[in-house]
C-alpha cells in the first residue's frame, strides 16, 4: 500500500477542507472498498481523512414524512433499524442481499454509494483499464466480460456498479445530501451515479472535496408491494449478475405506480421511467410485466460472455414484479425464489 498521511477531523467542515486542500486526499469511513483498492494499488491517495468519528450516525425523521440517514450509519445498522424494516423493507432487503455480515457491520451508507466497480481489469493493475488509467484501453471489451454491463455502456468502459443498496435507493428515489467546499447541495439519486461515456474514471457526479453527509428517503412507499431479487454465481456473498428492486403501489387490483431499478447491468443503478409508466393503471399480468421488461431492455447489448444477462434480466424483472404484486417479497436467507 502506498504510504499516506492520516488526519482525523472533528467536524464536517474540517473534513471537507482537508480533502479539498489536496487533489489526492480521500475520505475514508468503513474502508471496506477503499482499503481493498489501496492494497491492490488501484487507489493511491496521499492523504486519508478519517470521518468515522463525525456525528453522522443517526437515522432521523424528516419533515416530509421520510427519513434522513446519516452517511456513517453502517449498512447493518440501517438494514436492521426497526423503522427501516417497517417503512422501507425494500431497502433493508437490498442491503441484506449484499456482502457479508462482517462487511455490512463496517461499511457505511455513504461509502456504499461510492463503491467502485468489480471489473476484473479495473482491479488488476497489470492490465489496461480506462477507468483506472484513462486512455489505456478497455480489455474487457473482447475479453472476459461475464459480469459486465448490458445497458448504458460506452466504447471506453463496460463496467457495472456493484452495490445492492443503491439499487433500492434508486427505486425509492432517495436524495443524496452532500457538503463540499462550495457548501451543501442535494442530488437526486438518479443524478448521483453516471454512465461511463468518455469519462469512465468518474463514477458519480460528486466534485472533489464533496462529502456525502446523508441519504434522505421520501415518505414511505411500497411497504406492501416490493421485492429485492438478486441473481448471482453462488447463493450468497457474491456480487449481482442481475438484481431487481421493484416497488408497486396497488389499488383495487391495479397498479397505480411502479418503480423498477436494476443492479449489475450498468455503470449505475438502472431506472427506466417509461417502462414504469407502462405498468400504471394496469392489472398485474405476465404480459404487462413482460412488456415492461422488454421496454427496459430494448437497447440492451451484450459483450459476448454476458449476453445471457439480457435474457436473465428480462426474467428477473418479471419475477420481481410478480413477487411485488403478490406482496411476497424475497427473503434473503431463503434461497428458493418464490
Amino acid at each position, binding site marked *: *500500500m502506498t*504510504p499516506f498521511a492520516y488526519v482525523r477531523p472533528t467536524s464536517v467542515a474540517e473534513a471537507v477542507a482537508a480533502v479539498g486542500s489536496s487533489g489526492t486526499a480521500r475520505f475514508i469511513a468503513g474502508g471496506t472498498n477503499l482499503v481493498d483498492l489501496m492494497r491492490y494499488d488501484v487507489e493511491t491517495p496521499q492523504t486519508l481523512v478519517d470521518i468515522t468519528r463525525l456525528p453522522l450516525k443517526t437515522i432521523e425523521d424528516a419533515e416530509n414524512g421520510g427519513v434522513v440517514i446519516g452517511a456513517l450509519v453502517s449498512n447493518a445498522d440501517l438494514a436492521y433499524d426497526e423503522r427501516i424494516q417497517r417503512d422501507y423493507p425494500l431497502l433493508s432487503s437490498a442491503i441484506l442481499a449484499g456482502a457479508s455480515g462482517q462487511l455490512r457491520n463496517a461499511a457505511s451508507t455513504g461509502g456504499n454509494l461510492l463503491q467502485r466497480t*468489480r471489473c*476484473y481489469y479495473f482491479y*488488476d493493475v497489470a*492490465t489496461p483499464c480506462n477507468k483506472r488509467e484513462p486512455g489505456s484501453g478497455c480489455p474487457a471489451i473482447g475479453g*472476459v466480460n461475464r459480469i459486465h454491463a448490458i445497458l448504458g455502456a460506452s466504447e471506453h468502459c463496460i463496467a457495472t456498479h456493484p452495490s445492492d443498496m443503491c439499487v433500492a435507493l434508486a427505486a425509492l428515489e432517495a436524495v443524496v445530501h452532500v457538503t463540499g467546499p462550495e457548501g451543501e447541495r442535494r442530488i437526486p439519486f438518479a443524478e448521483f451515479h453516471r454512465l461511463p461515456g468518455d469519462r469512465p474514471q468518474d463514477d458519480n457526479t460528486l466534485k472533489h472535496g464533496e462529502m456525502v453527509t446523508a441519504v434522505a428517503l421520501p415518505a414511505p412507499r411500497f411497504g406492501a408491494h416490493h421485492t429485492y431479487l438478486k441473481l448471482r454465481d*453462488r447463493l450468497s456473498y457474491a456480487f449481482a449478475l442481475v438484481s431487481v428492486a421493484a416497488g408497486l403501489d396497488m389499488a383495487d387490483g391495479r397498479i397505480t405506480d411502479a418503480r423498477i431499478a436494476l443492479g449489475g447491468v450498468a455503470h449505475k443503478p438502472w431506472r427506466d421511467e417509461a417502462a414504469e409508466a407502462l405498468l400504471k393503471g394496469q392489472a398485474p399480468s405476465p404480459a404487462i410485466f413482460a412488456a415492461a421488461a422488454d421496454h427496459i431492455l430494448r437497447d440492451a447489448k451484450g459483450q459476448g460472455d454476458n449476453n*445471457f444477462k439480457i435474457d436473465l434480466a428480462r426474467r428477473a424483472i418479471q419475477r420481481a414484479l410478480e413477487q411485488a404484486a403478490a406482496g411476497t417479497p424475497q427473503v434473503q436467507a431463503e434461497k*428458493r425464489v418464490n
Partner: protein
Amino acid sequence: MSNTEAFVGRPQSRVDGPLKVSGTATYVAEFGAEDLLHAVVVSGAIAKGRITSIDTAAALKVPGVIEIFTHENRPRTAWFDYKYRDEVAPPGSPLRPLYDASISYSGQPVALVVAETLQVAQYAASLVEVSYEAEPAVVDVAEVLGEAYVPKQKRSGISPPPKPRGDADGAFLAAPIRLEHEYRVAVEHHNPMEMHATTVVWEGDGKLTVHDKIQGAQNSHGYITSVFGLSADDVRVHSPYIGGAFGSGLRPQYQLFLAVMASLQLERSVKLVLTRDQMFTFSYRPDAIQRVALAADKTGRLQAVRHEAVMGTSRHEDYQEVVVNWSGLLYSCDNVRLDYKLAQIDTHTPADMRAPGATLGVYALESAMDELAYAAGIDPIELRLINFADKDENENKPFSSKELRACYAQGADRIGWSRRNPVPRSMHEGRELVGLGMATGCWEAQMQKTSARAVLTANGHLEVSSATADIGTGTYTIMTQIAADALGLPLESVTAVIGDSSLPTAPVEGGSWAAASTGTAVRAACHALRQTLLDAAAGIDGSPLAGATLDQVTFQNGRIAFIADPVMSVSIGEAMQATGKERIEAEETASPDMKAMATYSSYTHSAIFAEVRVDEELGIVRVTRIVNAVAAGKILNPKTARSQILGGVVMGIGMALHEESIPDKNLGRFMNHNFAEYHVPAHADVEDIDVIFVEEEDDMLNPLGIKGLGEIGIVGTAAAIANAIHHATGRRVRHLPITLDKLL
C-alpha cells in the same frame, strides 16, 4: 498377540482441535525469528515473451528496503534444471524462478522485494517497473487440440491408459444404443484458505530452519539442498500445521525457492507470504477436453467404451493424470479403447488437485452413463449393476474388496431413490423442478513406503513420529489412536509429531495414502516396543507375566495382561520402570505388500446421490441434499473420516456449480484471481450432506485394512449433481461449472 481396539474405529475428536479452535496452532507464516525480514513477490504481467528491463531504483529508495532480487542479480543457484526436480515432479524442466529474462506464463515471479517490514516490502514491490516484449500466448487447450501428443515419458505413479481390448469402434457401430459426447471442466485453482508461505529462520553458519507450506517436509528439504547445494544437515524443514492444500502443497512452490534464496544471500531470516491473487499463479486443475462414447445392447449391457482426453499442460513439464483409465475399470465391457494426450499451453504447470484425474474422467464417464440410462430406458442404478465389474478388466486382476453394490443400495435407500419418477421434468415443488441424480465414485487405494518412530518414556508417555503432514485430514488424530491402541494406552498418554524433515522418512501426504502408510508404520513401531516391555514385565520379581509370550498377552487399559486371565497383569509404567531406562524406542518402516499388489486391484468406491431444486426461469440451482455412500475398508475415525467426505463433496459442489478460473485469451491471464470472483461454495450453498460408510473388510493392502478417504468424496459428486440437474430440467450440460446462464 491380541489387542482390543479402544480407539481405532471409534469417533474421536481431533487431538489438535483445541489448538486449532483457540488460534494457537502455529502455521508456517506464524513462526517468528529475530530481525525477521519480509519478502513480497512481484508477479509478471505477460504470458509469454521476455523481460526487457526491470527498474528497481524507486523501490530501492524506500527506507527499509534491504534488497530486490531479479533475474539480473539473483545469486548463483543450481544450473542444471534437473536439480530443481522435486520428489513428485512430472517429466520435464521445472520452473526456475528468476532464472533469466524469459516469461512462460502470466503471473510468473519476476522480482522479490525484501524489506524490514511487510508494509515497506508491499509498497516497494508496487514501485518495481518491469518492461516486457510480449509474444502471442495460448491459454485455452481447445485451441491446440491439433498439437496433442502422447507424453514420451510417463509421470511416476501415473498409469498410462491400458492397451485397447476388443474392437471398440466395430462394437460401437454395431450396437443398437450408442452415444458420444464431449465433456469439459473449467480450470480450477486449489485455493486452500492459508496462502502459500515460507518462513526461513537463519540459524547462523548457513544453517536454516524452514517453515514451508508443503504436504511433505522432506520434499522441500530435498529440493532446497539440491537447488542451493546445501548439506542435508544444514537444513531442517518444519511445518506442523498446514492450512489446507488439496494438492497445491505437494511440490515445493516458488515462494520456497525465493525465501531460501533471499535468506542465504542476506544471511537473515525471511518470511514470504503469497497474496490470494498470487495463489492463481501456480498449480491448478487442468482443463481436459474429453470425448466419451458408449454403446449398449437393448438390455443395457455395454458393448463398447471409448474415452479420449486431451489435457492441458505447461510448455516445460509433461504433467499427467489418470483421466481415462476409469472408463475401462468401472464397468465390465469387452471392447474398450482409452486415449490420453497432452497439449501445451502458456500457463504454469498444472498440479494434482483433490482426486486428480478421477474428478475429470469419472465426471465424464458417469455423465455419459446417465445419458446411456436414458437412451436405454433403464434406471441409472440398474444400468450400473447390469454392467458391474467383478474384476479389474484393465489389469485383469480381482479386486481386493469392492462393496460398491452395498453403496448403491444404502445410498439409494437413504436419498429415497424409489420416489424418483425417472421422467425428466416430472418432479416439482412450488416453482422449482426437483431432480435426483447419482453417480459412482472411485479412487485407487494406495500405500507408500513410510517410516515411523515410537518413543516410550519412563513417565509412561508415548510419542510417535513420522515426516508426514496433516493438511486437515486428521493425521495427528489417527496416529494417536493407532499408537494408543497398539500399546493399550489412553489417548492422553500419546503425542503424535509430524511435519518435520528430521523425522523418519515419509512421502508427501497425498493420494489418500497417508492413513494407510503412516498408520501401518506407527503401528509397527509401537508393536516393536511390545517385546521390550513384555520382557521387562516378565522379569519383575514374582511377575504374573513370567514366561509369557507376546501372543499370550494383550496391551490394554495401560496394562499388559494375559488374554486367558486378564487379572494376571503388569502396568505399562511398571514394565517401563523394570527396563531401567529413561526411554525405549523403535523405528519401523512399512511397505506395501508387493505380492498382494501384483495379485489384486485395490480401490475405494462410492455411490453419490444428489437432490437438486432448480428454478428453471432464473437458472438457480440449489443442491438440497447429497448422500455419499462410501466403501473404503476400515474407518479409523468415523468423525474425521466423515469430514473428509464432506470436504470432498463440498469441493464437488463447487466443481459442479461454481469454480472456474477464467482466462483472458488476449492477455493469457486468469482474470478472476481472487475470492470475490473465483467462487468457492459458501455456507449458503451447502445444505444437507449425509455420509454413509459401508462395511468393507480388506486386509490385502495393509494390516489395518485402510483404503484412504481424502479423494473419494469429490469423485463422482459433480456428475451426480449434473445428472440431477438433467433429471430436474431435461437439460444436459456437459461443460462444468453449470452456472445459471447455461440453464436459461
